[in-house]
């Protein structure tokens, strides 16, 4: 089970072995997605600063290309930024994204704060990745320099280690 307690800000990015805090965020203007909706399933949480970065194959577009690889590990990808759900809807449509984008908009950055990846100066999240196992334990996390798209190699390596049974326990 995922921890359902809310409101506790982390002082640093959460690390492997720590329990992933639950959240419930809008994925569309009228639909909510909670981490606990995916009990028993591996989750890839991809925090990113903002929709519509002006490059081809930005981080979310890249992940969209390799969703089948994530799916082959049984993992669900969730993108999270502080953009509102209407902005996400436009971004999803523009980039033909086939996975949910969650809106960490109100209270602003609440989920990012609980994972220790909120940038107070800019009001956006870090570019941060968390791979969480089916029992809600973070197996791998990584905070990329804000301007550097971290790619997918770290995520895939973490999923491979989990598949091989090399899990980190809390």
């Amino acid at each position: 089970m995922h921890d359902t307690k809310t409101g506790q800000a982390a002082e640093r990015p959460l690390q492997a072995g720590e329990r992933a805090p639950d959240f419930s965020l809008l994925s569309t203007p009228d639909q909510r997605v909670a981490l606990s909706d995916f009990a028993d399933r591996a989750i890839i949480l991809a925090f990113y600063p903002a929709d519509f970065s002006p490059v081809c194959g930005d981080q979310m577009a890249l992940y969209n290309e390799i969703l089948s690889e994530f799916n082959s590990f049984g993992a669900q990808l969730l993108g999270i930024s502080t953009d509102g759900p209407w902005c996400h809807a436009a971004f999803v449509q523009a980039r033909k994204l086939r996975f949910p984008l969650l809106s960490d908009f109100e209270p602003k950055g609440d989920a990012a704060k609980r994972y220790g990846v909120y940038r107070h100066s800019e009001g956006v999240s870090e570019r941060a990745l968390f791979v969480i196992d089916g029992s809600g334990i973070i197996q791998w996390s990584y905070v990329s320099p804000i301007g550097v798209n971290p790619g997918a190699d770290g995520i895939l390596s973490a999923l491979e280690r989990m598949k091989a049974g090399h899990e980190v326990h809390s």
Partner: protein
Amino acid sequence: MSGLTIPVDAEDHAAGSSDAPVTLVEYGDYECPHCAAAHPVVKTLLSEMPSDLRFVFRNFPLTQIHEHAMLAAQAAEAAGSQGEEHFWRMHDEMLEHQDQLDVINLLATASDLGLDVSRFRTDLEASRFRPRVEKDFHGGVRSGVNGTPTFFINGVRHDGGFDEGSLRQAIRAAVGIHSGSR
């Protein structure tokens, strides 16, 4: 830091000196405007540093956002199967004319380049080079390719800009490191 997990080998398309101290690998998409912008930069640097630089191009088509990217990547490979020089000519043509990547235009380009058009067409229809393109793509993902273009300089992902000044500086630094270690 992400690094190239698939070493450059004889299967790769490489331009420039084979014993150059610096190898620049690009993962690119023929329909990506940023790759088109990087194209003349790479050409300039190759002509500037003929003995110091080798350039390798690998396919990274972003098929969800670029309708013609997968076909174009296969077209370059199909051209290359008729002679390595044809790979580079098709590569140049496509990056310089990104509005002409549909099958009709690609066949016309193949004809202009003097390729065996019938064979080229059959290769495209049979998706003969799709596995090769997909292999490039998946190798790129494992190496930390994070969009297009992504460059690796002697195996290390280049996270700086790919304007002429930035790329030249990074390559010259790698040449310097190499000559310093000899």
